[in-house]
């Protein structure tokens, strides 16, 4: 069982991702703002962070940079959840310090494999 921090402001999406992660047998820590995400990342030291980009207050990119700035957050895999239509998002999220990204809408058939891939450190 792994500890996964999900930073997502939309309750329904948060529930959707949490549902899938719990089905996979992982423990979910939920953060609804970037600030909360940074705090929980340092406090809980999760094995993986799933990061929505469009957040109220500080956005996902800045949240990622803040987590990366500290020693405890320097190595945790951070996966961005990005919208398919936004060109250039990919480069942007990688530059901000994300390990990878998963495009929305979430496809339950493929997302499990991708999460496992990042958790095992193979990506």
């Amino acid at each position, binding site marked *: 069982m792994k500890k996964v921090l999900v930073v997502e402001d939309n309750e329904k999406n948060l529930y959707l991702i949490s549902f899938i992660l719990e089905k996979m047998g992982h423990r979910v820590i939920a953060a609804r703002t970037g600030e909360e995400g940074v705090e929980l990342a340092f406090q809980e030291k999760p094995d993986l962070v799933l990061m929505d980009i469009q957040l109220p207050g500080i956005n996902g990119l800045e949240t990622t940079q803040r987590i990366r700035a500290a020693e405890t957050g320097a190595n945790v895999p951070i996966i961005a959840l990005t919208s398919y*239509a936004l060109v250039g998002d990919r480069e942007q999220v990688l530059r901000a310090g994300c390990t990878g990204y998963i495009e929305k809408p979430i496809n339950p058939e493929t997302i499990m494999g991708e999460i496992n891939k990042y958790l095992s450190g193979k990506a």
Partner: protein
Amino acid sequence: MKKGSIVILMIVFTALCALLFVLFYENAEKTAVRQLLDTQQLHAKQASQGIEEYFSTWTGILGSLAKIDSVIDVDENGKRHMKLFFETHRAQMRSMTRVDERGRIAYTVPYSSSIGSDISDQPHIRTILREHRPVVSDVFRTVQDFDGIALHVPVFQGAAFRGTIAIVMDFDSLAKRYLEVVKIGKTGYAWMVSRDGIILFTQVPEFVGKSIFEVSKDFPSMSAMARELVQGRTGTGVYTFNRIYEQVVKPVRKYAVYMPIRIADSYWTIVVASAEDEVLASLASFRNRLIPVIAVLFLGGILFSLLGAKAWFIVAEERNRKKAEEALRYSEQKFMKAFHATPDAIVISRAADGLLIEVNDVFLRIAGYDRAEIVGKTTTGLGVWANPADRERYVAGIREQGRVRDMEAQFCSKTGTVLDGLISGESILLDHEPCLLTIIRNITERKKTERELEQHRLHLEEMVNERTEELRRSQADLRRSLDETTAAKRCLEEANARLQELDRLKSLFIASMSHELRTPLNSIIGFTGILLQGLAGELNAEQRKQLGMVKSSSEHLLSLITDIIDLSKIEAGKVDLSLESFDLSAMVREVLSSFQIMAERKALSLSAEVPAGLMLVSDKRRTRQVLVNLVGNAVKFTEQGGVSVAAEHRDGVIHCTVRDTGMGIKPEDQGRLFKSFSQVTTTEAPKHEGTGLGLYLSRKLITLLGGEIGVESSFGRGSVFFFTIPANREEAA
């Protein structure tokens, strides 16, 4: 060129002649020395051979005597034999002796008193007793007071040594015979040393019997040679030694040759030497002949060079003179030409009284005089100056500054016409007399024009004043209407700003709306997926079918929203291309396979004709979007037959076609096809699900990628959609 060159020439000649002299003289000296050494060598060789022969002859004779039995036994017969032999050869020997094998004198003639004495302690006797070979003694002074030298030959009876048979020779007679005869020039003579370095013979009697090393100890060059010659070597040498001549002692350089004389078991060395004077003396006459020859050569060379240089100077001077004359003539011609050709009047006059010396034709023409009329006249005398004060001003200007430039003055012609002139001048020297060179430009016409112009100007000013007043009135009118225009313009600007603001708000609205629209859709699609996957529990078939419809509708809605966002971005010009290299053939295969299920449902064939590995650099996602749109449309609107995609690379451009066997498009509809929200509808065809934005967006995308898009179709027979894009967007951009 002159004095310096001659001095250099003389130095060069002197050096050349001196060099010539030295070379000739040195060569002659070398030859003379070589000749001297050759002569000395010849003498030394003769003496050496003579002495060697002398000793070898006597060794042979004594050897013969030593074989006579009576001589071996020294019996009476033998003694008589030896006595007889001595008597016969008395002139060449001083005594004859028979020594027994123990070194005692067994018999001797003529000094018979010595018989029985033991001489075995003498060095040469010791040698022959030990080695049984012929030996020669050192030169020694005998009791009979002469310098003798003994030659002993061994006597054998069978193989047994029985002592020696010997003769004693007078060394002086030997020396006289072979050495004293050696005379070269006035100073050349021979001397001889033994192998121990004892001087056996020389011209200075007190040196005889002394060691050569002792004698030459103050003369290193001679010592060096002595070391060579006591080793029995042959060679030549130069050494310095004192010569005593009429009580004057003077060191002299000598040229010498030396070679060994081999006698019996030892050798002596003969040296033949001559003083350097000998050589120099022989050279003196040569030198005396050479000097005049060189002197004549020297003087001749100098004389020749001087004459040559003088001739050259004369020619050069003549040439320079001609050149100067030519230059003077040329400059005179130039001056005269200018003097007469210039459009200005030129006057040369004496500074003191203004007497005219020379005027040019222009002056005569303007002033109206003949040349004859002005001879001996002055400018004031002719009345050329209209105002005499002008002349004073001019002359004063020249006196003070040396020249005058462009001074205005008036002149009178012969007929009394007043002319305006612009006068320039300066003082020059002509035949050592100060003169004035005056140039007068006729500006009468110009002055007249100026005066007329001034009249015009005054008139113009009046007219301008009138006009200005009129303008002032109409300007007031204009200002009023301008104010009205400005107000209208401001209204327009405000409207424009409002429009721009509206446009910005529209883009902002679309961007934020799209996010807001997508977020719930994303969760609808996500949850539908979870349910369909059975993650939340098992579903029955009807539920699964209906949920599938929810999912497909949601995805359609999402693509619709995505298209709208894309369009609004393109229209707002906010699109960034993301260029990368990719394989078009792979992309076509992948797109076709995504429509495989839909095609199979309608029994349509899907085919591709794209060369494997057709690479291009462009925006991959947007290229794919266009392909998906075109193939999707083709599959959607075709009921039987199939869809085929072809692509190829021609001259840096990718040409791609999507061909279908659908219902086709009427010509009148083809124009509308790429406009927004247009879906061609017919009564026959079913209404198709679609945004109506696909082709419009595709056209926008292809334009963005730098290509073109179009269609060829005939109604009822299918359509061919084609597009082009640059194979490398980076280079094309």
